[in-house]
């Protein structure tokens, strides 16, 4: 038997996976609000498992550096199999400068940015190494709102079974 091939995604496949509807309950904001982790001093974070309508397994994580609260990340991980995971999206806060090696562009330090898996960066073995500067959010709270309004999430109304889009929801 040959070695297991790592999953490679084309741009169209990435888009389809991101658009795959992902139901979350109305408690998603409180579920994802970072809280101190007993075993990891100065780290705040949460995890949320999501099963998409298409049957795919995802995990959403939030992670905040308690010492540098602008240093946060909200990510979407997809599990193609039990032994493999791919981080598709990471909405990050302030970090050091981020050079996009292929495009030869630089995102300046202390700028919110979004890492996206891309076909071209997978080809060079660094699937998450591309990032785009963003003004869609400016702190963790607005980043969480942005994250859940994109990437296929919808609210499963537990009371009525209706599916409500999250796009226009405001952060309380």
């Amino acid at each position, binding site marked *: 038997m040959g070695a297991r091939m790592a999953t490679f995604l084309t741009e169209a496949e990435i888009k389809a996976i991101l658009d795959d509807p992902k139901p979350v309950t109305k408690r998603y904001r409180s579920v994802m609000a970072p809280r101190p982790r007993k075993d990891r001093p100065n780290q705040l974070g949460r995890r949320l498992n999501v099963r998409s309508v298409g049957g795919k397994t995802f995990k959403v994580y939030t992670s905040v550096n308690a010492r540098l609260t602008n240093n946060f990340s909200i*990510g979407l991980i997809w599990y193609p199999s039990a032994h493999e995971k791919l981080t598709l999206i990471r909405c990050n806060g302030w970090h*050091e400068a981020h050079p996009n090696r292929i495009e030869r562009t630089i995102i300046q330090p202390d700028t919110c940015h979004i890492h996206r898996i891309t076909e071209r960066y997978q080809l060079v073995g660094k699937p998450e190494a591309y990032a785009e500067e963003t003004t869609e959010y400016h702190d963790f709270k607005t980043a969480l709102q942005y994250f859940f309004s994109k990437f296929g999430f919808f609210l499963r109304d537990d009371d009525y079974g209706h599916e409500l889009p999250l796009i226009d929801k405001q952060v309380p």
Partner: protein
Amino acid sequence: MMDKNIIDSIRSQVAADIRLSPTADRLRIGTPLTFDDGDACSFFLIQQGEQLVLSDLGDIFTRADYQETDLRASGHRARFDRLLDFYGMREDSGQLVMAVAPDKMGGAIFSFAQASLELVRLARTPADRKKRAERKFRAKVGKLVRSLIPANKLDENWYDREEDPNKYYPVDYRIHGTTADWWVFGVGTSTKCLKATVTCQHYRLLKRKFRGVAIYKNEDELPKSATAPLDEIVERKFTRFGDDGAIAAFLENELSRT
């Protein structure tokens, strides 16, 4: 012989690639080296009393967390400790720090950057499979015990603060009893088996009253030489964790009454 102008030019260009951003209480040092996700590696110089230290202010653990990895958990811990030791770093409440002398700053900055890259790379390396399996097993045992025993009757990772302040003889789960406590051990490996045996023997010598319970992940997978001594000491054993029903029934019937 290389032209001195070229040498000076390289020196100044390399120095210029290290970005220094001072703030009120620290200096951020940005390097052109990047992590696997493309973010540049940066850290801070901080004055701690009389001493200068380089610190990541928790960034390495946060980056490891993106990979769902705790570098301090078994499976990564040994390699993590070796890297810290090798680079002369230490962990301080969730941040990694390195003491630095003012006249050794250049070398320290490169060492700290290299260590940061290696530590984040380590977080992407799968944990040792055996240790991961052991961690999973222990988590399952913990979940089962916690689901059945009220929190006010349960001590996890208990040790006797007076007799054993150095935690040489830990007990996985101590369940308070009226006449004697129940000591429950989750046993997945030979090492764990021997540690549980040593703990029980130690307290037996001290004439401590307790009733031992061994929950094996699978006793058949462990050498008899390791399991036999523990089997002799404990009052009850479960040879395979798959028998959740039997373990739960025992814990419910016997332990929750104490």
